[in-house]
C-alpha cells in the first residue's frame, strides 16, 4: 500500500542512529543516581521547556488531536488554549518554587515532605502503575499504526517473514530503542531526545499543514467548506446543544480548564520531572512558561490537518481501514468527510455504525491519511519518522517518570532504605528494564482484551481527577494535614467513580461509558461533558473533605512547613533578574498571546 523507497529508509535510519548516539554520548556523564534520575539538575531552561511539552506530545496527542479536529473542528484547540496554557503558567509561577525549592526528587516525595508517608505511598503507587500502562498503550497504538500503514509489508516480504510478525517487530523494536537510550543516559538522554523529537515533529508536520492549507485555499477555504461550528472555537459554547463538543461553557472552563488541566500539568510527575531537572530555580520556573509558547501554536500543527482532512473532497481513501472496503459513505454530519474512511470492525470487515445506524468515522486515520495524501517519497520518510518519534517521546517520558518514582518513592522507602547510591542507580536501570517489560505485556494484553485498557484509563481518570485539590490546599493553606489529604484523595476518587457510575451520555450504553451502578441520575449531552463533570465532582469532593478532615486533625508545626507552603516560604528574589526572565512577566505575556489566539478564532 505504502511504497517507501531507499531515501525514506535512510532518513529513518539516520534518526535512529542519532537517538542511540545521544545516549552513548551521555553515558559517561551518568555517575550518580541524581545524574540518572534528575539529569544532575544541570539542564538549561529552554531544553527543559521543549522536553516538557515533548514528553506530553506522545502519539495519543498527535493522532488524537487531529482526530478530534476532524470530528469537532477548531473547538479542539480548547484542549490547548484553555486546557493547558493557564495551568502551565500557574505551575511555573506559583508551584515550581515548592517543587524545586523543597529539593524533593519527585512529586510523590513532595507529598511526603508536605503531608505524610501514606499520602506519598498512595500517589507513588497509583502513578507508577499508570505510567507503565500508559507506555504500554502507546506501544500498542504504534504497532497498530505501523500495521495499518503497511510500510513494513514490503521489507518483510523481501526477507520472507510472515506479515503477522510486523506487530511483534514493532513492539520489540520500539522497546529496545527506548530502553537503550534511557539505560545509557538516564533522564538527560530522555530529555535531549525529547528536544530532538520536538524539532523532528515540527519538521515532519509543518509541511503537511502548509500543503493542506494551500490545497484547500487557506483558512478562508476551510471556513467556506465546513459548517460554521467547525471553524469557531467559542461561538455556540454558551449551551451544550449548540456546539460540536456538547459541553456548556461552565463545564468547559471548570472541568477542562481547571480540574483536568491543572490536575495534569501541575501534578503529573511525567511533566514536572522535566522542570525539576533544570539547572536553577529560575530555570525551573521558566520551563513550563517556555513550553507554553510552542504549545499554544500546536493546534496549527496537529488540529488543522484534521480539519483539512475533512474539508478535502471525498475520494478513495489512501488507507481503507481494515481490508478491502472503500465505501462511499453518507456523511455523518453536513459536509464531506474528506479523506477519512469509516471505521471497519476487524472481526467482521463491516462498517461500524452507531446506535442511529450512521457509519462511525475512523478519525484516528486523519494524520496518517494526510501524510500519505500529500507527501512524496523522501518527505514521507521524514513524516513517518516524526510520527514514530512522537510515539517514542511519549513512551520514554513515562518510563523515566516510572523508574524515578519506583526507585525513590517505592524501593528506597518501603523495600530497601539506606542502601548506597550505586545500588539505587543500579535499581533505576533494572526498573527501566522491567518497566518496559510490563509495558510490553500491557501492549499485548490490549490486543486480546481491548476493554481492559479502556477500563484502566477510566480508573486512572478517577485517581487523577482530585489530585489538584490536594496540591492546591497543600501549597496554599498551611492548616492542611496529612490525614486530610489522604482521606480527601480517596473520597475524590470515590466520588468520581460514583458520579460516572450514575450518569450516562446520550447514545451510550451503560457499562464502560457510565451508569454501571444500575441507574441513570443524569443524562449528559456528550461523553466529553460527562467526563468534565466527573472531574468537577471529584475535585469538589476532595477539596471539601480535605478541608473538613484537616480542621478535625492536628496541624503540623509551622517550622516543619517552611519551603513547602506559600505563606511560610520566602519569595524568590527577582531584583537582579532581567524583566523578560521573570516568571510573572513571562506568564502574563503567554496568557496575553493565548487570549489573542482565542479572539482570532472566536
Amino acid at each position, binding site marked *: 500500500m505504502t511504497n517507501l523507497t531507499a531515501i525514506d529508509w535512510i532518513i529513518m535510519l*539516520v534518526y535512529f542512529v542519532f537517538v542511540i548516539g*545521544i545516549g552513548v554520548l551521555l553515558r559517561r*556523564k551518568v555517575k550518580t543516581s541524581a545524574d540518572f534520575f534528575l539529569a*544532575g539538575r544541570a539542564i538549561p531552561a529552554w531544553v527543559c521547556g521543549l522536553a516538557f511539552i515533548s514528553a506530553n506530545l506522545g502519539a495519543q496527542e498527535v493522532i488524537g488531536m487531529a482526530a478530534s479536529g476532524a470530528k469537532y473542528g477548531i473547538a479542539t484547540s480548547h484542549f490547548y488554549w484553555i486546557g493547558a496554557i493557564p495551568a502551565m503558567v500557574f505551575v511555573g509561577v506559583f508551584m515550581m518554587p515548592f517543587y524545586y525549592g523543597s529539593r524533593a526528587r519527585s512529586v510523590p516525595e513532595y507529598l511526603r515532605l508536605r503531608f505524610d508517608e501514606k499520602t506519598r505511598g498512595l500517589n507513588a503507587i497509583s502513578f507508577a502503575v499508570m505510567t507503565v500502562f500508559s507506555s504500554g498503550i502507546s506501544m500498542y497504538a504504534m504497532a497498530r499504526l505501523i500495521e495499518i500503514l503497511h510500510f513494513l509489508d514490503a521489507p518483510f516480504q523481501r526477507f520472507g517473514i510472515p506479515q503477522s510478525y510486523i506487530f511483534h517487530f514493532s513492539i520489540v523494536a520500539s522497546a529496545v530503542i527506548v530502553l537503550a537510550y534511557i539505560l545509557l543516559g538516564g533522564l538527560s538522554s530522555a530529555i535531549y531526545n525529547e528536544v530532538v523529537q520536538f524539532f523532528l515533529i515540527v519538521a515532519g508536520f509543518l509541511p503537511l499543514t502548509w500543503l493542506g492549507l*494551500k490545497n484547500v485555499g487557506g483558512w478562508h477555504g476551510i471556513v467556506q467548506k465546513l459548517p460554521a461550528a467547525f471553524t469557531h472555537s467559542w461561538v455556540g459554547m454558551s449551551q451544550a446543544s449548540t456546539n460540536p463538543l456538547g459541553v456548556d461553557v461552565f463545564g468547559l472552563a471548570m472541568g477542562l480548564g481547571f480540574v483536568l488541566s491543572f490536575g495534569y500539568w501541575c501534578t503529573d510527575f511525567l511533566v514536572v520531572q522535566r522542570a525539576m531537572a533544570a539547572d536553577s530555580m529560575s530555570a525551573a520556573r521558566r520551563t513550563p512558561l517556555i513550553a507554553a509558547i510552542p504549545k499554544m501554536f500546536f493546534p496549527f500543527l496537529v488540529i488543522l490537518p484534521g480539519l483539512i482532512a475533512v474539508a478535502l473532497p471525498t475520494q478513495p481513501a489512501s488507507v481503507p481501514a481494515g481490508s478491502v472496503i472503500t465505501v462511499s459513505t453518507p456523511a455523518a454530519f453536513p459536509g464531506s468527510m474528506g479523506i477519512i474512511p469509516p471505521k471497519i470492525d476487524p472481526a467482521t470487515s463491516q462498517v461500524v455504525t452507531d446506535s442511529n445506524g450512521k457509519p462511525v468515522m475512523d478519525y484516528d486515520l486523519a494524520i496518517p491519511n494526510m501524510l500519505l495524501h500529500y507527501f*512524496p*517519497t523522501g518527505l514521507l520518510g521524514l513524516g513517518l519518522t516524526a510520527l514514530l518519534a512522537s510515539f517514542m517521546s511519549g513512551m520514554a517520558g513515562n518510563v523515566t517518570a516510572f523508574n524515578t518514582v519506583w526507585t525513590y518513592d517505592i524501593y528506597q522507602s518501603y523495600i530497601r532504605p539506606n542502601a548506597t547510591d550505586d545500588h539505587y542507580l543500579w535499581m533505576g536501570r533494572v526498573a527501566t528494564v522491567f518497566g518496559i517489560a510490563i509495558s510490553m505485556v500491557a501492549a499485548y494484553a490490549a490486543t486480546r482484551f481491548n476493554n481492559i485498557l479502556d477500563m484502566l484509563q477510566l480508573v486512572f481518570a478517577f485517581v487523577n481527577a482530585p489530585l489538584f485539590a490536594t496540591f492546591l490546599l497543600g501549597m496554599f493553606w498551611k492548616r492542611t494535614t496529612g490525614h486530610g489529604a489522604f482521606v480527601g484523595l480517596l473520597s475524590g476518587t470515590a466520588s468520581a467513580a460514583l458520579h460516572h457510575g450514575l450518569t450516562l451520555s446520550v447514545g451510550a450504553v451503560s457499562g464502560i461509558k457510565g451508569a454501571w451502578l444500575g441507574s441513570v441520575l443524569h443524562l449528559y449531552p456528550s461523553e466529553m461533558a460527562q467526563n468534565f463533570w466527573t472531574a468537577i465532582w471529584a475535585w469538589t469532593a476532595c477539596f471539601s473533605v480535605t478541608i473538613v478532615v484537616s480542621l478535625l486533625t492536628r496541624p503540623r508545626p509551622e517550622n516543619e512547613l517552611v519551603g513547602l507552603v506559600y505563606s511560610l516560604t520566602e519569595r524568590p528574589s527577582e531584583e537582579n533578574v532581567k524583566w523578560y526572565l521573570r516568571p510573572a512577566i513571562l506568564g502574563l505575556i503567554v496568557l496575553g498571546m493565548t487570549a489573542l489566539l482565542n479572539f482570532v478564532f472566536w
Partner: protein
Amino acid sequence: MGLDIRLPIGGLFSILGVLLAGYGLVSDRGIYVRSLGINVNLWWGAALLVFGAVMIVLGGGGVRPGRDDKGRPHGRERACLRGR
C-alpha cells in the same frame, strides 16, 4: 551536562536536509503530483539544512541561553541525595 544539545540537533537536521534536498534534485518530477506540483523535498530539505547550520553555529559559538552574563548557569546547585 557538558554536551550542548544544539550540536547533535544541528548535525541531525543538516544531514536530513542534505539527504532530502539532494533527493529533490535527482528525483523524478512525477512524484510531486501529490504535493501540488511543488518539489517539497528540495525546498523543505534546504530549509532543514539552514536550520541545522544555524543550530551548529549557535551551539559551537558558545552562546548559552539560560546562563548569566558570566556564562555560568544561575545559582547552579548539585542535587544531593537526601538521607532519610
